[in-house]
């Protein structure tokens, strides 16, 4: 053996042994790490692997349907077909597929650009929507040509549809994509593409009931998010069905009568407070909001002087005019400054303080009792009793009837109106309350402002012997149609009876201001009160030159026409208020509208029929 191998060989053996030892130690470290990862921490990593693998997706619940009180559909969910493209299935040629599709479904350059952009931005297995709301014909044509359209798919979804269109726009409202703020504080469901929430009206008010509970779908996904298979599915709970107190037939007739005006009408069941009719005109088609609104349409809706987007029943503020005279009369009677048989002379004008007040009838009414004053709607009589009663007592009575405060109807956007007092004027306007202000309030003009809904509540309270009801749009399950649901106003029954007699004369007495509104439905009559409020102050010069007829004035300078009514006169059940903006005279424009609606209500008598909710409950 060679000598050099001696020391050298021993060293090699020693160092090799050390290497083996080192390798064994390092292998032990590896095995320790395996034990740590695969045994000690295994549960944690198993959970993480499951989280990787399983993706939980939300499923949108179908939105609750809305019916009228007898089960007629007002808001439905319609099948919505949309055409989509999955780029990885276009056989590598998106352009060819789109060109083939364009032979069936013409696409604008803008649309094509948007599609290309979205395709670039999304993963190649994610469907990109080409167009929504296909017609049935378009959908059929696409499906027929499916072999020539690789990567094109038809997807079904639900979209909100309002079959009554304009007739229920303000009441039902509409749905739309949730705003950034809503998404931020709302549940994750709102982040689903194409998920809509209530934006106005009932859709907004009852959003929580109508929305339902989201379903979930657990799917296995791969690293790039492609769904491999579905593991489990929970459909969630559809939104609750919502039957309203509205009678669609009354709504229909109101729309027919009012669609060309700018106005509003609302009818209440005077016992339950159920709203049977709620109409604001001009209206708009709420389906436009679901299916996309063009710029022109939107511009038209927002700049129209008749303000189609405003629900005037709750959001319109008007001087109540002569419809307010019952409140003034009741305040005067309760204060004892006038008795039912007190006569006051009307000479056509009166000077109070240093101001000359005119009656609407320049020649004057002569001596009048309270009942006659209501029938003629004599202004002089009410200037006088208002002066005697004083603003504080009038204001207090008006507040009892609900003026100056929201009625509490279950619909958003309600305004409180204004019922002035001395203190209010001093605080807000910094001026002394004048006696003339009291006189103006006495005929429902001046500072007092009311919504048509407040007028209907007032009419209901007059008709139901002094109970202030809270208007409601839904029918309670334990509804008792013959029980007062309102708050007792503690008014004298005799005084209320006198008011109703006066309102009876307005329509049924040949000298009444609303003779035109007289009807007789199988012996059932109605009672009411007109109101005509000036939009523009009449100058002395105009009065001297002779008043021009309302028809000659430009539309926006004409008077507002108001009307409150109840019926039937025996055992009343329905209270109605109608306001026609710039309609001219209360008796001439608002009266006939109120008459026709009342006639329909008396014929149909919806308050006494079992509602959809109750027929369904008893299984009839």
């Amino acid at each position, binding site marked *: 053996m*060679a000598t*050099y*191998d001696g*020391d*050298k*060989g021993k*060293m*090699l*053996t020693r*160092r*090799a042994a*050390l*290497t*083996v030892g080192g*390798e064994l130690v*390092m*292998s032990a*470290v*590896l*095995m320790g*790490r*395996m*034990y740590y*990862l*695969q*045994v000690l*921490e*295994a549960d*944690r*990593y*198993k959970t*993480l*692997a*499951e989280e*990787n*693998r399983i993706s939980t997706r939300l499923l949108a619940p179908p939105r609750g349907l809305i019916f009228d009180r007898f089960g007629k559909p007002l808001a439905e969910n319609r099948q919505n077909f949309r055409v989509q493209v999955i780029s990885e299935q276009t056989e590598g040629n998106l352009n060819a597929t789109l060109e083939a599709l364009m032979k069936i479904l013409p696409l604008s350059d803008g649309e094509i650009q948007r599609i290309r952009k979205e395709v670039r931005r999304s993963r190649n297995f994610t469907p990109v929507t080409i167009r929504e709301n296909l017609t049935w014909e378009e959908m059929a044509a696409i499906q027929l040509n499916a072999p020539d359209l690789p990567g094109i798919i038809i997807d079904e979804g639900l979209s909100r549809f309002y079959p009554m269109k304009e007739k229920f726009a303000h009441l039902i409202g509409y749905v739309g994509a949730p705003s950034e703020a809503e998404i931020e504080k709302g549940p994750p469901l709102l982040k689903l593409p194409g998920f809509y929430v209530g934006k106005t009206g009932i859709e907004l008010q009852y959003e929580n009931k109508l929305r339902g509970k989201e379903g979930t779908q657990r799917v*296995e*996904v*791969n*690293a*790039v998010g492609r769904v*491999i298979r579905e593991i489990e599915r929970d459909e969630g709970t559809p939104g609750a069905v919502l039957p309203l107190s509205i009678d669609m037939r009354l709504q229909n007739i109101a729309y027919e009568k009012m669609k060309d005006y700018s106005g509003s009408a609302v009818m209440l069941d005077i016992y339950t407070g159920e709203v049977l009719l709620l109409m604001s005109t001009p209206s708009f088609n709420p389906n436009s909001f679901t299916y996309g609104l063009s710029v022109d349409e939107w511009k038209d809706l927002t700049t129209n002087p008749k303000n189609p987007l405003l629900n005037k029943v709750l959001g319109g503020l008007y001087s109540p005019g002569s419809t307010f005279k019952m409140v003034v009369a009741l305040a005067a009677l309760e204060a004892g400054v006038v008795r039912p048989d007190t006569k006051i002379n009307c000479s056509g004008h009166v000077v109070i303080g240093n101001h000359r007040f005119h009656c609407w009838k320049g020649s004057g009414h002569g001596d009048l009792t309270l009942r006659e004053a209501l029938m003629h709607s004599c202004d002089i009589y009410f200037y006088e009793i208002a002066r005697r009663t004083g603003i504080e007592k009038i204001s207090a009575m008006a507040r009892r009837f609900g003026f100056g405060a929201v009625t509490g109807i279950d619909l958003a956007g309600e305004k409180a109106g204004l019922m002035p007092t001395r203190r209010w004027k001093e605080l807000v306007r910094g001026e002394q309350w004048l006696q003339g202000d009291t006189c103006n309030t006495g005929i429902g003009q001046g500072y007092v402002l009311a919504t048509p809904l407040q007028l209907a509540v007032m009419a209901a309270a007059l008709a139901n012997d002094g109970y202030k009801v809270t208007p409601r749009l839904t029918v309670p399950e334990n509804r008792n149609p013959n029980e007062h649901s309102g708050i007792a106003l503690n008014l004298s029954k005799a005084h209320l009876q006198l008011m109703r007699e006066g309102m009876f004369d307005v329509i049924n007495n040949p000298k009444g201001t609303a003779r035109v509104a007289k009807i007789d439905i199988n012996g059932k009559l109605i009672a009411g009160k007109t109101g005509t409020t000036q939009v523009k102050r009449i100058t002395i010069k105009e009065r001297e030159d002779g008043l021009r007829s309302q028809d000659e004035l430009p539309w926006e300078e004409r008077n507002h026409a108001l009307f409150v009514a109840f019926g039937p006169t025996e055992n009343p059940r329905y209270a109605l208020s109608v306001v026609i903006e710039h309609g001219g005279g209360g008796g001439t424009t608002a009266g006939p509208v109120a008459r026709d609606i009342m006639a329909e209500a008396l014929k149909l008598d919806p308050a006494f029929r079992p509602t959809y909710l109750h027929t369904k409950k008893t299984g009839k």
Partner: protein
Amino acid sequence: MALSSLHLRDADLSLRDRFFRLSWGYILLICLVAITGFVVLYSAANGHWKPWAAKQFWRFVLGFGVMISVSMVGLRTWLKYAYVFYALSLFLLILVSVFGHIGMGAQRWISLGFIRIQPSELMKIALILALSRYFHGGSLQDAQSISYLFVPLIMVAMPAVLVLRQPDLGTTILLTAGAGVLFFLVGVQIWKFAALGGVGLLSIPIAWRFLHDYQKERVFTFLDPERDPLGKGYHIMQSKITLGSGGFFGKGFLQGTQSRLNFLPEKQTDFIFTVLAEEFGMVASVSLLVLYLALIFYGYMIAFRSNSYFGRLLALGLSTNLFLYVFINIAMVMGLLPVVGVPLPMISYGGTVMLTLMFSFGLVECVNIDREVQIGRRGAYDD
């Protein structure tokens, strides 16, 4: 056969004799690792032979031929041409840095038309061969003198710098570590390693400036993989999840959700170990490690049965090199080392590495066949 002769020469053994002197136990272990590789690659492709397992099989068959061919050449011949082989590899390395194609953002291979050569892989073997020859020729005193170490250090430094410039950190580490082991084995004093280590530590701030951004990122990611789980730490996090979720017994063959659903990018190459560990659990990960250790220690056994210093050093060096591969790869996928791009031998999908490994197994077999051959310091038959 009279094989106890002290003066056995290469020529004394016919090819037939050489073939029958092959260590079949060693070959069996190699085949077991390779078969494990096919199974795991089959699973990584969701239960398909394509695209990886089938190709890997044919590479193994080719590699098997290379291994047998290499073992048929005499050990003396390998000694004789060791420097030539090294020079050729170095030349090719220089060539790729000049003409090399761009692959994976780095210049690594030369295309010869029908085959692509990665000179850095050839260099792993060439360096061990050349160093083994160098140290074969010296005494222990030589090995322990600094001046004698100058030449082998240059032999290591040249390819290491070239490979690092490609840039291929994984191969650089394997080259220098593999060479370092040889220096250790021949008896270079421990204090010299310590001194070199000290110098190395001091030069880290300087070296840091030469690292590519992606290499720096890998170091950051290694230090704190969870700070950016969807970005740079993604590989390490998912690798650990894949391993850990396998548990003790695994999820079952073809049942690995992490690999089937592609949560592990490039799972067929550097991260292949996790595919096995996910589906067969800790049982399999420990078993595979033991199998590798058996193969490595078998190599050591062959080394110590060899009569020549060259043969011993060669078999020791190549087997230790295999251990480095295994250790770095597994430590890397388990988050113990930064991700440097070292494949799992015989199992990671990849052609050149497979052929290089089979080449080195062939050399170990050659040492085994020529275990009785004695080689003089200068490569003569006797001193």
